[in-house]
């Protein structure tokens, strides 16, 4: 019996020794063709539109409670029950707020139902990275991804309208992957891009030309999120070593304040990394004296 055990151990040692070693060297990849990016949407390629709820400024409070204290068990059970009831009520309240906020989209239903990945990416679109122009393609519309080493951006966009229709916000989560090596993958880059209506009557503004202004703004905001994510991916987070500061911007006609790291600033816009590590590009609260770019020109290409 002992002899059989020794033979089994010997075979296991030999088996371990004969496995192929882990490949420690990788074939050198050809350089990335950075003149184009292929966008890959979630399977149905539908674009979601929501209403943005108003900020909930109050701290959640349940008020003072009296817990039955006949013994330790009933006291703890009272607290646990209260906590469960409280969280259920808060979840219900949040859901009601979201449902109320989403009603703002009803006025645009006929327009947003016709917006999909193909309509916002289209063809002949470019984003800018420094002096470079990077062409953007919709992966599902291309017959095949070329053999060259290129970037593929997996995107998951959603759009929000603020409650007074004043702002359109694109929220996109972008992950860059390589078509040659699955291990080459960026972390999730979340980008928010806000386009304000340039009129005291925002509903009329978006409705211009049979909502062509609205559709252009959607397309422009989406491409800007790709541009910002691409820039951050290529720069590998440069700018985050700067000092944190208070950023003041305008949203829904009101002053909003957030803390973050400013990565880009122009006369009327500011781009910063939030404390939640997402990227935001928003109009400054007090723009300097410069011509605000009309919506049509925000689109990098027509």
């Amino acid at each position, binding site marked *: 019996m002992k002899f059989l055990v020794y033979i089994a151990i010997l075979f296991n040692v030999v088996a371990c020794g004969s496995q192929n070693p882990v490949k420690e060297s990788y074939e050198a990849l050809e350089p990335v063709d950075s003149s184009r990016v292929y966008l890959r949407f979630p399977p149905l390629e539908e674009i979601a539109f929501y209403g943005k709820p108003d900020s909930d400024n109050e*701290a959640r409070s349940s008020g*003072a*409670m009296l817990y039955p204290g006949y013994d330790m068990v009933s006291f703890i059970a009272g607290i646990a029950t209260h906590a469960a009831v409280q969280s259920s009520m808060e979840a219900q309240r949040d859901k009601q707020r979201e449902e109320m906020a989403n009603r703002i989209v009803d006025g645009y239903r006929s327009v947003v139902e016709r917006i999909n990945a193909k309509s916002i990416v289209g063809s002949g679109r470019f984003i800018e990275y420094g002096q470079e122009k990077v062409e953007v393609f919709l992966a599902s519309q291309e017959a095949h991804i070329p053999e060259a080493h290129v970037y593929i951006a997996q995107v998951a966009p959603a759009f929000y309208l603020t409650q*007074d229709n004043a702002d359109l916000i694109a929220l996109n989560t972008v992950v860059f992957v390589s078509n040659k090596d699955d291990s080459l993958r960026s972390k999730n880059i979340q980008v928010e891009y806000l386009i304000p209506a340039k009129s005291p009557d925002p509903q009329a503004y978006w409705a211009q030309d049979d909502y062509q202004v609205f559709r252009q703004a959607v397309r422009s905001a989406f491409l800007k999120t790709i541009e910002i994510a691409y820039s951050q991916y290529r720069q590998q987070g440069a700018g985050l070593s700067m000092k944190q500061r208070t950023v003041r911007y305008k949203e829904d006609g009101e*002053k909003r304040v*957030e*803390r973050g790291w400013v990565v880009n600033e122009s006369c009327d816009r500011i781009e910063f990394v939030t*404390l939640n590590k997402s990227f935001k590009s928003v109009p400054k*609260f*007090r723009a300097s004296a410069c011509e605000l770019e009309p919506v049509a020109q925000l689109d990098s290409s027509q």
Partner: protein
Amino acid sequence: MRILFIVFFGVIFASGCATTKQQPINYSETTLHKDAKIGIAVAPLPDVQITYPGASCLLCLAAAAAANSSLSKHVDSLSADDLKEIPLLIKAKVEELGYDAKIIEAPLELSELPKYSGKLPNTAPRDFSSFKQKYDVDYLIGVELNYVGVQRNYSSYVPVSDPQALISGLQFVVRVEDNTFTWFKPLDFRKGAEGEWKQKPDFPNLTNAYYQVVESTLDEVVNTKRGKINEGEVIDPETGEIAQVDLSKQ
């Protein structure tokens, strides 16, 4: 002896009840006299802190502190440096209104001023007359912040609210000639985190709430229209005036 004891403490309690709290006084055309010389002084800023109202026993306090140790550590790292701009903001606003103003560099220590009592309404409880001699001012604009930080309400050992950022204090204008308040405004700004607050170790949503109350304080110290910006009102970014938001559209 017992009667004397009762009378003695009765007088003390009665006199305490007779002290009236200063009511807010809105800014108006009579707040500052034409051609007045105005001094601006600010009390030293308190440290940024976290407290647990309602955790009244020592053990409750220890339990609350232990349960919120990472939040407390983060609150220690928050900065109140933006609040140091208050005298500069007030000076700019006062000069915009057409007055001559100067910032008094010495910190405003209200408790070190001699007590004062007068029969006129809105008399200040402290004697500010020394500012006339020392700084040659007719009016003093003072700001004292007595709490800067985060607060979480407790009921003994049990938290009953999420933490919220809080800045409180007061702002006033006193006519140094007769120690009368011509403007008196309590400052109280509270804000909870938008979304989830339990985001260790940096608590980003609660941190944003803190800097938002800092911003609200900076906006309010130069707001001359009301005692406080009320719900539904925002400061017009172009004019600095209060613009009423139509609440029926909310």
